[in-house]
């Protein structure tokens, strides 16, 4: 008797493990991403708590321009304020500070650090200062226009020793310096992997910024005043016309940390969105496992009912089991998630997004969230199966085999169709002008409808997709096909996670394909040159404006023109201006000017896009007031209107507009047209030499350039695919669990087949094909939904300039192949289990 009881528990243990597996995976991603985000936050917090450790006050401009995507540009302040601050009583020492873009070029001519991604590359002021973090470890601080100091890590990475010549690229161009010192940053050699080139104040102003201007002033007190008092004293000393503010060291530290926190929170939200998608997918698997296990226990439950257990008791028994599974699963998931967060760091590293490493942080909220959400999802998923289990008629105990209740209600069909119809109506009505918020509902309706209809369509779709298996695999194929169709509810529940994963991947791929083809079209139309110099730096740094000028005068080159971008304020809102060089732009970069001419673009004028002109009802000669980053306000007259706004945006100005201000300006691209008759090959090496002189930017042919523009889309795509991969893993585990339970359920059948001559490899084939068919059902329906979803997203982005929809044929084919492979892989273990079925036990148990 003991033995039987023990065996029962052991049998249950296997089921417990299988059910828990789905919970574990779902919650692991939840806790993994939470732990990862928290760790990342903590890492950056620590990093920035050091920066202003010995700074008591911090003086800066109050003038900030905020543009889209949280980018902000703070004005510079005049350098003469340094002396004013120095005079304030209570101030012991001050340092004028500049934090600007500067890239150190290695001895091999390649810049140190990765362009665009990765930690920033700074140019700054290095001098003796009480509050500074920089301390000289070799040599001395730089003095004079030809000297530079490098941070220890960069010096090591570039194999620089004292007295070496070091080339540095900054906004004003590239220049060579003599290395006179190597500095370390607090106790670390380089903060967070950033590179630093340190100059004396005058050189830094002139080379990194604009002469006469600095970013901020660092103040160290003499201890006679508290930090707050000191800040107030300084604030009073500076005339209000300078528009400055003075923060305490603690305030600026906090602010920096908060800024980073905000920047990271976007990433954190992205991660948690995908982890909730994964959890949603996981809940399907949990629901499926509970349903199957309820079906397999039908006889047991019926027997309980027959001997007097009430409906409630049977239901409650199952719910209690789900609580146990939920607690157990989410606890294991929590722990697994901590391991996963490390894997996530590795994944990002693989996507060349390098993050500083730090100690693991497991916030209490992550622990509570994981367990509570895991428990809720599990119990909620078990709710329906448990209720169904309670409804089992006691008579079912007498039935020969436990087959899942498969009757497909007409109600389900109607309900599903109604949902789909609602979805279609919502989407169609949006295309006819209704509010776009309906799109979201449309998608939701459509997905819910499809999933509701799942069991109805699973059988015909399985039979259809199984046809080839039957054709090529004979009777094993027939059986696989029939097996995948025999239990439509189960099949559809197993395929649903695959469907969701595939639909999302397909939608993203469709979006990417549309963007890519659009980019391709736009650049082909607007870029008329032969070569381009590209930079992957975004927002911070770029190509020196003199690069375009240098190339423009090369003998092989007919024209070279630089395109840059400025952040300004118009009508109190941050806006981007595209800067062009009106003298060289014509015939190389086409903005589709429909009125005015490039010659009209002076320091007094501005061009606007046709769309802008229409929306704002403006015409030539109207006035636009622009506030620049240095608080300069200019009144510009509209002198031209253009149609191609995909690259140029709403406003285009001459780059001369800011020539004499402290506003930073880089080119983001240089477009080059060769003289007629100059061969591309010979020109290329000359151009490359010119680019190499600056040590920055990548020379690309027209085709390469256009492809590289879509390339950055693909990088983002890689990240999204990586995150969706989590859901795909859960879907695969779902297939594995279902197959295992099905194999368990079909032991007798498998035993019979083995008895009448099915070889082990045929058994495996049957399971494998069943798996492949199930996976393909999810993939095929998922692709159809995904293409639809992609179309809807592209449609919703129409105003953002996305005009054409492309079906991602390549991705679709690879998704199909992937799901085939996934089917094969998911079947490996269940198929092996199937061959281990005890032949005699299977056929002799009555």
């Amino acid at each position, binding site marked *: 008797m003991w033995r039987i009881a023990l065996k029962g528990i052991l049998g249950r243990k296997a089921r417990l493990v299988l059910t828990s597996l789905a919970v574990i995976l779902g919650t692991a991603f939840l806790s993994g991403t939470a732990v990862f985000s928290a760790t990342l936050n903590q890492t950056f917090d620590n990093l920035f708590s050091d920066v202003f450790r010995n700074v008591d006050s911090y003086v800066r401009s109050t003038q900030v321009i905020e543009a889209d995507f949280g980018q902000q540009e703070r004005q510079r302040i005049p350098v003469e304020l340094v002396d004013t601050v120095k005079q304030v009583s209570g101030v012991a020492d001050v340092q004028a500070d500049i934090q600007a873009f500067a890239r150190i070029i290695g001895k091999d001519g390649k810049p140190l650090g990765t362009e665009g991604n990765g930690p920033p590359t700074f140019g700054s002021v290095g001098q003796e200062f009480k509050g500074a973090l920089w301390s000289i470890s070799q040599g001395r601080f730089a003095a004079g226009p030809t000297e530079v100091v490098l941070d220890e890590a960069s010096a090591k990475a570039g194999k620089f020793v004292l007295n070496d010549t070091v080339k540095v690229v900054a906004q004003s161009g590239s220049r060579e310096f003599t290395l006179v010192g190597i500095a370390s940053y607090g106790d670390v050699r380089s903060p967070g992997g950033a590179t630093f080139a340190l100059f004396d104040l005058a050189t830094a102003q002139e080379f990194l910024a604009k002469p006469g201007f600095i970013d901020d002033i660092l103040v160290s007190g003499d201890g006679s005043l508290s930090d707050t008092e000191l800040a107030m004293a300084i604030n009073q000393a500076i005339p209000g016309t300078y528009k400055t503010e003075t923060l305490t060291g603690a305030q600026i530290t906090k602010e920096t940390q908060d800024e980073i926190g905000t920047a990271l929170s976007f990433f954190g939200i992205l991660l948690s969105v995908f982890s909730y998608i994964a959890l949603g997918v996981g809940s399907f698997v949990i629901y499926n496992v509970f349903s199957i296990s309820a079906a397999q226990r039908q006889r047991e439950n019926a027997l309980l009912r027959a001997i007097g257990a009430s409906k409630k008791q049977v239901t409650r028994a199952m719910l209690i089991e789900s609580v146990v599974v939920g607690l157990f699963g989410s606890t294991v998931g929590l722990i697994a998630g901590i391991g996963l967060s490390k894997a996530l760091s590795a994944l990002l590293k693989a996507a060349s997004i390098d993050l500083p490493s730090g100690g693991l942080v497991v916030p209490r909220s992550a622990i509570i969230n994981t367990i509570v959400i895991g428990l809720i999802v599990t119990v909620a998923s078990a709710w329906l199966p448990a209720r169904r289990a309670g409804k089992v008629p006691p008579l079912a105990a007498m039935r020969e085999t436990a087959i899942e209740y498969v009757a497909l209600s007409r109600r389900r069909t109607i309900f599903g169709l109604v949902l789909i119809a609602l979805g279609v109506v919502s989407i169609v009505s949006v295309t006819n002008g209704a509010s776009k918020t309906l799109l979201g509902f449309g998608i939701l309706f459509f997905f819910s409808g499809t999933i509701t209809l799942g069991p109805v369509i699973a059988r015909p779709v399985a039979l259809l997709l199984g046809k080839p298996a039957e054709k090529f695999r*004979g009777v094993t194929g027939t059986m696989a096909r029939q097996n995948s169709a025999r239990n439509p509810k189960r099949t559809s529940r197993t395929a649903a996670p695959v469907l969701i994963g595939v639909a999302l991947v397909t939608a993203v791929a469709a979006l990417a394909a549309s963007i890519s083809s659009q980019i391709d079209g736009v650049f082909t139309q607007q870029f008329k040159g032969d070569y381009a110099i590209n930079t992957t730096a975004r927002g911070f740094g770029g190509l020196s404006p003199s690069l375009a000028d240098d190339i423009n005068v090369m003998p092989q080159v007919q024209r070279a023109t630089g395109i840059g971008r400025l952040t300004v304020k118009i009508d109190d809102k941050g806006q981007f201006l595209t800067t062009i060089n009106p003298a060289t732009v014509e015939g190389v970069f086409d903005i589709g000017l429909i009125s005015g001419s490039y010659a009209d673009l002076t320091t007094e004028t501005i061009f606007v896009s046709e769309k802008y002109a229409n929306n704002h009802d403006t015409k030539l000669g109207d006035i636009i007031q622009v506030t620049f980053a240095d608080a300069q306000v200019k009144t510009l007259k509209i002198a031209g209107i253009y149609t191609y706004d995909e690259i140029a945006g709403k406003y285009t100005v001459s780059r001369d507009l800011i020539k004499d201000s402290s506003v930073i300006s880089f080119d983001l691209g240089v477009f080059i047209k060769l003289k007629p008759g100059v061969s591309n090959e010979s020109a290329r090496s000359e151009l490359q030499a010119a680019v190499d002189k600056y040590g920055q930017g990548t020379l690309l042919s027209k085709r390469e350039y256009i492809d590289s523009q879509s390339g950055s889309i693909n990088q983002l795509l890689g990240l999204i695919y990586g995150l969706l991969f989590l859901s795909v893993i859960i879907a695969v585990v779902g297939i594995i669990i279902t197959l295992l339970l099905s194999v368990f359920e079909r032991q007798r059948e498998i035993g019979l*087949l*083995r008895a*009448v001559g099915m*070889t082990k490899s045929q058994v495996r084939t049957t399971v494998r094909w069943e798996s492949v068919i199930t996976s393909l059902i999810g993939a095929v329906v998922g692709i159809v939904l995904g293409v639809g979803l992609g179309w809807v997203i592209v449609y919703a982005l129409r105003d953002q300039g996305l005009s054409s929809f492309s079906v991602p044929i390549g991705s679709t084919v690879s998704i199909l192949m992937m799901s085939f492979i996934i089917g094969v892989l998911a079947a490996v273990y269940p198929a092996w289990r199937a061959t281990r079925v005890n032949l005699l036990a299977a056929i002799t148990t009555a």
Partner: protein
Amino acid sequence: MNNPSDSAAARATNVSKIYGHDDSEVRALDNVSVEFEKGKFTAIMGPSGSGKSTLMHCMAGLDEMTFGSVTIDGIDVASLKDKDLTKLRRDKIGFVFQAFNLVPTLTADENIRLPLLLGNNKGNEEWIQKVINTVHLQDRLSHRPSELSGGQQQRVAVARALASEPAIIFADEPTGNLDSTTGNEILTFMRKAVDELEQTIVMVTHDPVSASYADRIVFLKDGKIAGELLEPTPELVLDYMKQLGH
């Protein structure tokens, strides 16, 4: 060791099957030697637990014996690896079990041809049609097992056992779950298969009437051969069983 001139379709020599060990040892078969002649219908009888099923399983390569040897159509079963053993079951042996004989997802026709289909073997169509006609299943071929009565299901099982023209068919209480009329129908078909189609059948049964369809009855008791009866009638069988103290 293939010896086609052998008159035995299957032969067991000194076969023992021991379950468990030491104190809890159960000798399900104790040094059993028996031959089943080609083209004959043999019944195996004996009290519950006497080892009838065990003998069939050992002879059919479904279970391993502890000692002794078994040959099917001259092939030494013990020497075969799993793959060849599976092929042997598929090509040389037919099975009819008491219940759960058919694959629920396949039609009657597919179930009948299952061993052939598994072997990627077209089989002898003429023969298959003859078998189907013999068991009267012509108009039920496209049905699935769930759409067939118990008797019809057993007829499909018999047809499947016959389909590959095996050297021998083992049937373990094939009529155990059927009422006597339906049972007799099945037994008549099996008899016909031996007489008209020259098949070899070994059948386990508890029922003297069923056993009387056979050419010969082998009695088992406590894992040993307890006796034999040729040309049995139900009365002879009952007498014999009384003699054995059943």
